[in-house]
């Protein structure tokens, strides 16, 4: 699958990058904890260099109904990255209830799950906070200037949500670095994934900055 450029990050770079990235993810999850008013724990953090075309295979069951909170960083000389919080509908509702506890229900099309406008707005804000903290870490620690664009909250099959991201990554290079993070809370059984997918330009800049 070595299609084009830049699948050749040095293996020794990955652990270094991993610990650097972990700090950013922890800051982002910590910001989410403050927002929901209880501890959100980082359960797992996987970092892997994956060809864009293989992302879906690596990530998930593509047909699962999913609520995605998606943030694209603005295009800059530092490249760009896609940040995505993914939840099952029930977990999205759990998070939303933690964010705005006394909201009544509304209906997601084709699904029994329910989210109100205010809850959706709160999820959007959660995406904003998480991505801002993560990108801020990249800027402070590695000098990468990437700023979050306004979040989208979208409900569809996981694969359908992600394939635009995958196509965009493929436009800039076949390599993408994926962070797959599982998080959880005590009371609400919340599980979700925080994905960060860097394009090949951002990858090169990251490698330069932290080698």
């Amino acid at each position: 699958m070595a299609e084009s450029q830049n699948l050749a990050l040095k293996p020794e770079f990955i652990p270094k990058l991993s610990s650097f990235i972990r700090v950013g993810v922890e800051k982002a999850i910590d910001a989410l904890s403050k927002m929901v008013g209880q501890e959100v724990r980082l359960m797992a953090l996987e970092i892997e260099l994956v060809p864009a075309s293989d992302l879906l295979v690596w990530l998930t069951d593509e047909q699962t109904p999913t609520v995605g909170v998606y943030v694209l960083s603005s295009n800059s000389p530092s490249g760009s990255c896609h940040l995505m919080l993914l939840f099952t509908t029930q977990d999205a509702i759990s998070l939303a209830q933690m964010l705005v506890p006394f909201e009544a229900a509304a209906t997601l099309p084709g699904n029994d799950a329910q989210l109100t406008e205010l809850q959706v707005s709160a999820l959007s804000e959660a995406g904003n906070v998480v991505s801002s903290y993560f990108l801020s870490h990249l800027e402070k620690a590695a000098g990468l200037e990437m700023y979050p664009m306004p979040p989208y909250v979208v409900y569809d099959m996981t694969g359908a949500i992600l394939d635009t991201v995958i196509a965009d990554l493929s436009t800039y290079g076949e390599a993408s670095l994926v962070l797959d993070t599982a998080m959880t809370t005590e009371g609400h059984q919340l599980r979700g994934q925080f994905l960060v997918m860097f394009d090949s330009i951002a990858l090169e800049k990251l490698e330069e900055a932290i080698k």
Partner: protein
Amino acid sequence: MSTANQESGQASPPNLISVGLGELYITNKPELTLAAFALGSCIALCAHDPVAKVGGLAHIVLPALPLSLKSNGEIPPGKYADKALPEMIVRLERLGASRERFIFKLVGGAAVLSGAGILSGPSGPIPSRLDIGRRNVQGVINALFQAGFFPVAADFGGQAGRTVFFWPTNGKMRVRTLRGEERDY
């Protein structure tokens, strides 16, 4: 590529071949069903020869190999519309199909990040770099026109993801969405 019997509320047909991103699958085996799951901006281009009873599916990701990328290695055969179609034709002909009889159908090219699936998002059009579904539809139709073909059926655009099943030896195609819609072509 994998054989699978993935389900999401509705049963999937037996003997299923899941055609992944950038893959191309051609067959003359009547027992097989080809599928592309959860298409967003991607396109499933389905082809069929009713006499030779051969068909296939290409899971197209982008309209063309980006100019900024140089291809110095193996290109996934179904990934780029401009490369996928000629490759598809060659492989169909290898199994006895004739281009005079080709029938093409296409599915996908949605803007999932800009419409019905969106619960919340910035107002105004999506950034052009994310408007990939529309570019993919144009790319596939252009590639077909340039090769002298016209799709006989198309279920494209909109804002919802789609899953497609294609029966390559009889040319039937079924499209499903998360909202429970099902359409046959």
